[in-house]
């Protein structure tokens, strides 16, 4: 690795790696080592693969890559064999000999491993034809499956650092900012603030400017930032360097959530190799421009994702937000102008510089440009990360890409925007998802979490869950948020426990109004959203809890019980064997009984029964 001293050196190294990828006659096996696939056991599959390749003397004819997250986490571990793009999901070690013997050696498919679309039951051979991927437009996330995140050379081979080159040699800082402004890029971290405008204001203020990347990813249920940092760290890094050129900054920070050790490792390695090539550090590409980045591991507090709290935390203080009379672009980190953007926002920057603002602005809707990565999780068939143009309908995302609801149950709502967002009911399924449309229906974009809920999800419990989370995470410095959320939690808990009273809903509405209007920071002002949107669309369910003391979804424990349906029970004895309290009894092949008063509602019998005979009452 040599330091690249000028533009030509960067160009020649990039084109040599681009050519290597293009002209390679070798088969390329890309094995996903993202967090999901990793949990399913990619490491073992990889070891077996390497052994098998060695056994067949194929090590030199095949290239194996451990890539970042491909997105289709539900079906991990995933393997894609290029150039054909053969897609093998849900691999185990025992499948590998067949793949090596047939596909790699002889070019035949291993029929039993081919993906079967759960919706149509059709077999699908190639990755590009899998419905989950087919309807996506993977502008930001696409390279994840092709590159090894630990090799900067791989990033070069997909045109990496071309945007940096352009920004450094062909554009003035003002032109960069104008380009970002014209692209219409809005922040992906929550509020959707126009990035170009933020950059422009930051550049106007004097002081040691800082460029910061928000990788705190506090929304429990979203993991796209993690997957970008782990799977394509250089794209985020390149975006940040371009940002630094635009505003004239020499120092940057990445604030990473402490639960993400692999993201820290991969990003540190990216920094290291960028420094070695002279793309980071002193005198970048011989231009005299200096810029370097530090990594700071967050302490694990949701509120630290908020811009001013994040900066306090970077300074080693408790992450308490401050009032924003003075914006952080003027006085932020160490009282200097600071430009904070989210991971995904930064990853959009190289694309905009490379392809131009016009191209970028052609994707998406009037007010929201480009694509957005959603974390599609919950009660949906195909869980994973989904990148679609802004404006794609909820129905397309959940039913066409996501394959619909698990176990053919009924869709009830989708929660977007994390703890600051809201639940969107069925009537809005044809809503085109963008910043403004989501806000109109009482939710928000947030960081892109999309949690699908079905008939078995209790909406009161969901509201209680979010308020519990938020009151736990409230930094406690302002009264409305600290005390208000606590009161709201008390009311919601009481409803869930069957002690709800007439007037509780009005009380919740009143408290919500107070917390939303009087809190200091974004945590408090948006905290009532999950409750408000919930009461608005699911008032009846609240009333059933309060008036009838029933939880129709069977979630609030004091409000339901399990019963064995005497008609459906076949007497298979499975539930009786599993019951930890040994309170289910009955003869073999005869309907069983459950002793209600001793039941601890652990849910084991409900899960175990294969005849749906354990029912919630």
């Amino acid at each position, binding site marked *: 690795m040599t330091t690249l001293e000028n533009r030509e050196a960067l160009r020649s190294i990039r084109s040599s790696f681009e050519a290597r990828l293009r002209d390679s006659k070798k088969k390329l096996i890309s094995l996903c080592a993202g967090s999901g696939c990793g*949990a399913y056991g990619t490491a073992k599959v990889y070891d077996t693969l390497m052994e098998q390749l060695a056994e067949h003397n194929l090590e030199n004819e095949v290239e194996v890559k451990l890539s970042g997250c491909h997105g289709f986490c539900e079906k991990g571990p995933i393997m894609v064999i290029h150039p054909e793009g053969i897609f093998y999901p849900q691999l185990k070690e025992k499948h590998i000999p067949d793949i090596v013997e047939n596909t790699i050696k002889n070019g035949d498919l291993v029929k039993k491993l081919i993906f079967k679309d759960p919706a149509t039951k059709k077999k699908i051979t190639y990755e590009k034809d899998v419905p989950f991927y087919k309807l996506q437009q993977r502008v930001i996330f696409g390279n994840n499956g092709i590159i090894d995140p630990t090799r900067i050379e791989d990033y070069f081979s997909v045109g990496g650092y071309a945007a940096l080159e352009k920004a450094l040699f062909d554009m003035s800082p003002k032109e960069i900012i104008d380009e970002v402004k014209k692209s219409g890029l809005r922040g992906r971290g929550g509020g959707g603030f126009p990035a170009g405008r933020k950059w422009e204001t930051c550049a106007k203020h004097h002081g040691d400017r800082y460029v910061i990347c928000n990788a705190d990813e506090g929304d429990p249920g979203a993991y796209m930032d993690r997957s970008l940092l782990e799977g394509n760290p250089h794209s985020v890094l390149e975006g940040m360097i371009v940002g630094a050129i635009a505003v004239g900054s020499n120092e940057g920070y990445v604030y990473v959530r402490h*639960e993400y050790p692999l993201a820290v490792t991969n990003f540190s390695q990216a920094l290291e190799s960028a420094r070695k090539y002279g793309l980071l550090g002193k005198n970048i590409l011989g231009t005299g421009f200096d810029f370097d980045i530090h990594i*700071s591991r967050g*302490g694990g507090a949701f509120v630290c994702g908020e811009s001013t709290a994040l900066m306090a935390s970077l300074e080693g203080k408790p*992450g308490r937000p401050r009032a924003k009379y003075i914006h952080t672009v003027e006085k932020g980190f160490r009282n200097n102008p600071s430009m904070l953007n989210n991971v995904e926002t930064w990853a959009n920057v190289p694309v905009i510089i490379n392809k131009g603002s016009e191209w970028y602005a052609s994707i998406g809707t009037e007010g929201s440009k480009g694509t957005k990565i959603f974390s599609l999780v919950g009660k949906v068939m195909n869980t994973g990360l989904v990148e679609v143009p802004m404006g794609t309908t909820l129905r397309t995302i959940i039913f066409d890409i996501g394959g619909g609801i698990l176990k053919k149950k009924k869709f009830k709502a989708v929660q977007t925007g*994390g703890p600051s967002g809201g639940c969107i009911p069925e009537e809005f399924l044809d809503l085109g998802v963008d910043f403004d449309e989501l806000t109109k229906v009482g939710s928000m974009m947030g960081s892109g979490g999309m949690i699908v809920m079905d008939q078995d999800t209790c909406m009161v419990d969901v509201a209680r869950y979010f308020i519990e989370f938020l009151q736990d995470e409230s930094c406690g410095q302002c009264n409305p948020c600290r005390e208000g959320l606590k009161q709201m939690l008390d009311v919601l808990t009481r409803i869930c426990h069957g002690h709800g009273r007439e007037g509780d809903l009005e009380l919740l509405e009143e408290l919500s109004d107070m917390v939303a209007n009087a809190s200091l920071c974004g945590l408090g002002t948006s905290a009532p959203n999950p409750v408000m949107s919930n009461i608005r669309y699911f008032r009846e369910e609240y009333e059933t809890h309060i008036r009838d003391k029933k939880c129709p979804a069977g979630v609030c424990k004091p409000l339901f019980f399990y019963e064995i349906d005497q008609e459906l029970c076949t007497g298979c004895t499975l539930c009786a064997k599993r019951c930890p309290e040994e309170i289910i009894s009955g003869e073999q092949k005869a309907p069983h009984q459950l002793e209600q008063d001793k039941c601890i509602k652990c849910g084991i019998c409900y899960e175990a029964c294969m005849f749906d005979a354990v029912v919630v009452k």
Partner: protein
Amino acid sequence: MNQELTTEEKAALKSIAKNLETFNKQRGNLIPILQMVQEHLAYLPSEALRMVAEYLEINACEVYGVATFYNQFRFHPPGKHPVKVCLGTACHVRAGDIILENFERKLGIEDGETTADREFSIERVACVGCCALAPVAIIGETVHGHMAPSKVEGLLMRIEIEKDIAKREKEKSESEQT
């Protein structure tokens, strides 16, 4: 926070004292220092907090204030096999709380506690970034996706069995040596 330190922990405190020297005496280093201490000891005993305060020349209560603000810092020693149950939104709607309850019942301890033999501890966490595999539990370093109430017992049993095997092998190799 007033447990007696074990001999190993006392030894670790010494190497922490050495490690401290590598940090600048800057307030901004407080969190990285606490992270370093926790990496050594797996939790923050009050002795360590006081050491950090002395080193940075700030009040011990200030150190304590910062440490308690962040979820990542713990003040009790974790078990040898720490169990983390995710209760993020994705895991919550797929009944993560039932998984937590089953762990609590099986181990006879509650969230935040450690078993008397220091083998297991339970902690609830908010999203570990494997939401597609919800509900998720992590035991030690291993992520277990698509958890179900009935899987809990099996997982804990496996750890017991592995421990037994390791113990037997150790005994065997020792008896072979003699």
